[in-house]
C-alpha cells in the first residue's frame, strides 16, 4: 500500500459515540475495546455481541471456471460446496505454507463464490489471486475485490439469533451452521451466514457498505433488552483463542504447514492438483515436524504471549503462537507450536515469561465449547 493513511469504516463515528478505545489495525482505525475486554467477552458468551468487521476483505470469484480456479488455488475441496454453504480453506503458497485462511461462500448456481479474507492480508491476497488467474489463462474466471463496497457485521452469542430474527422478514432459524441465505435485516438486502469467530451461535452479515450503519443501528436497538453489547478487537481475539480458531500471523503463516497447525482437515490432497500440494503432501507423509498444542499455566504468572519460548526441562521445544488470560476459564491459556514428541494432553511444558520458566500443562482443545455443541 503506497498510502499509509488509516482508513475508517462507515461505522467509525459510532465507535466514538460508544466510547471505544481506537487503535490502528491492518491499515484501519478500529475499536479495540468499548466497555472493557473481559466484560465484552462475557457478553458474547452469555448474551450477545455486535462486531463491525468492515475492515475485512471480500473477493468475488465468478465465471464458468470459478470452481476450477478455486480448486487450483485453495486447499479445501470446493467441489463439495453447494449453493448456500460456506467452507473454511486456506490460500497456499508454492512451498506448502499458507498465504491466508479464508471462508468461501458459494452463491446461487452459476453466480460463483465470495471469498472472505483477513484485513491484514487483503491486498497481498488479491494480488496473488490475480496472479494465479493470469497463470491460468485457459480458465474463464473473474476475480474482483469487492471489499470497498461490502459491509460486514457479526452478531454472536446465545441471544444473537433472536435479535437478528426480530428485525428480519426471513426465517433465519433454518440456516444451519456454515450455511447462509439471502434476506433482509432492517429492510437492507444482505447475506446472512451462520458463521463466526467466537465459538458462539450467531451470524455474519454481508451487505452494501453504505447501509452498514442502518443494519448496525437496527441490531443495536433490537438487542437492547437482550444484553447486546458492541465488541472490539480485543475480545474478538480472546473469544477466538478460547474456541481455538487460528489467527493468521500467529497460528498460521508462510512457513507453517496446515498439518503443523492442526488444520489438515481443511486440506484435501486427493481433490486434484493445487498450489503447494506437493509440499503439503510431503509434510503429511513424513509427519509434521511441529505440532500445535493447547496449554494452561499451572502456576501464578503473567500470560503467555506470542513468541515466548516453550520448553521441557530447560530444552526449548517450540514457541507460543497465541496466549492470553481466558475470561471464561479465569486462567492463562495458550497455543504453542512444539516438537511433536513432546505433544500430548496432560504432558507438562514450561513457558519462558520474562526470563523465568513457568510451569504449564497441555490440555484438551478447544479450551471452550458452548454447551449445546
Amino acid at each position, binding site marked *: 500500500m503506497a498510502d499509509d493513511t488509516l482508513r475508517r469504516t462507515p461505522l467509525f463515528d459510532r465507535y466514538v459515540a460508544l466510547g471505544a*478505545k481506537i487503535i490502528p489495525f491492518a491499515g484501519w482505525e478500529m475499536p*479495540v*475495546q468499548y466497555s*472493557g*475486554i*473481559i*466484560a465484552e467477552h462475557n457478553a458474547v458468551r452469555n448474551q450477545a455481541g455486535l462486531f463491525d468487521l468492515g475492515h475485512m476483505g471480500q473477493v468475488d470469484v465468478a465465471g464458468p471456471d470459478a470452481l476450477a480456479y478455486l480448486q487450483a488455488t485453495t486447499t479445501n475441496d470446493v467441489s463439495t460446496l453447494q449453493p448456500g454453504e460456506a467452507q473454511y480453506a486456506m490460500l497456499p503458497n508454492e512451498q506448502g505454507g499458507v498465504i491466508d485462511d479464508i471462508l468461501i461462500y458459494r452463491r446461487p448456481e452459476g453466480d460463483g463464490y465470495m471469498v472472505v479474507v483477513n484485513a491484514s492480508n487483503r491486498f497481498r491476497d488479491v494480488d496473488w489471486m490475480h496472479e494465479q488467474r493470469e497463470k491460468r489463462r485457459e480458465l474463464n474466471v473473474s476475480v474482483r475485490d469487492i471489499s470497498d463496497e461490502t459491509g460486514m457485521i457479526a452478531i454472536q452469542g446465545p441471544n444473537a439469533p433472536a435479535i437478528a430474527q426480530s428485525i428480519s422478514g426471513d426465517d433465519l432459524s433454518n440456516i444451519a451452521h456454515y450455511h447462509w441465505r439471502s434476506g433482509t435485516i432492517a429492510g437492507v438486502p444482505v447475506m446472512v451466514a451462520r458463521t463466526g469467530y467466537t465459538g458462539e451461535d450467531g451470524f455474519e452479515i454481508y451487505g452494501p457498505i453504505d447501509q452498514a450503519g442502518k443494519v448496525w443501528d437496527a441490531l443495536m436497538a433490537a438487542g437492547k433488552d437482550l444484553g447486546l453489547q458492541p465488541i472490539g478487537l*480485543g475480545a474478538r481475539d*480472546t473469544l477466538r483463542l478460547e474456541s481455538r480458531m487460528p489467527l493468521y500471523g500467529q497460528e498460521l503463516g508462510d512457513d507453517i504447514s496446515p498439518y503443523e497447525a492442526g488444520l489438515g482437515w481443511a486440506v484435501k490432497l486427493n481433490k486434484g492438483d493445487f498450489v503447494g500440494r506437493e509440499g503439503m503432501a510431503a509434510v503429511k507423509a513424513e509427519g509434521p515436524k511441529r505440532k500445535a498444542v493447547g496449554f494452561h499455566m499451572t502456576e501464578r*504468572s*503473567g*500470560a503467555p*504471549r506470542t513468541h515466548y519460548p516453550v520448553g521441557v526441562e530447560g530444552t526449548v521445544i517450540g514457541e507460543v503462537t497465541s496466549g*492470553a*488470560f481466558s*475470561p471464561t476459564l479465569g486462567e492463562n491459556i495458550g497455543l504453542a507450536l512444539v516438537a511433536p514428541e513432546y505433544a500430548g494432553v496432560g504432558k507438562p511444558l514450561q513457558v519462558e515469561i*520474562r526470563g523465568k520458566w513457568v510451569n504449564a500443562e497441555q490440555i484438551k482443545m478447544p479450551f471452550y465449547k458452548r454447551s449445546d455443541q
Partner: protein
Amino acid sequence: MAVPGDLKYTKSHEWARVEGDIVTIGMTDYAQGELGDITYLELPEPGEAVSAEEPFGVVESVKAASDIYAPVTGEIVERNEDAVGGPEVVNASPYEQAWLVKIRVDDQGGLDKLMSADEYEKYLEEVAH
C-alpha cells in the same frame, strides 16, 4: 479522569504519595484506563532495591504486559498483597486500594524530578494530542 492534588506523578504514569522518607507508589487512573482490564501484577518483595526511572515491576492487561517504573530510588518496605492477589483493584481504585509498594527513599532520591498534579494534568493533555 482523576488526578488527586496531593500526589506526585511520573511521565510513565505512576503516582507517589510522600510521607517522610516513605513513598507509596501506584498507577494513575489514566494508566489503568489505557491498559484496560488488569489481570496480573509482578512486584518486588520487601528488601529489594529499586532505582528511579528503572522498571521494578510488571502490570499485565488482557492485551499486553507493561513495565512499572520506580519514581524514586530506595528500598521496598511493603508490598500490597491484596493487589497482587486481585489485580483488578487497579482498575477499580487506582489511588486508594491499589497502592502497589512502599519505598523507603535514599536521601530524597529523585523526588524533586516528579511532577505536581497540575504539571501531570498538563502532561496528559499533551499526551492526548
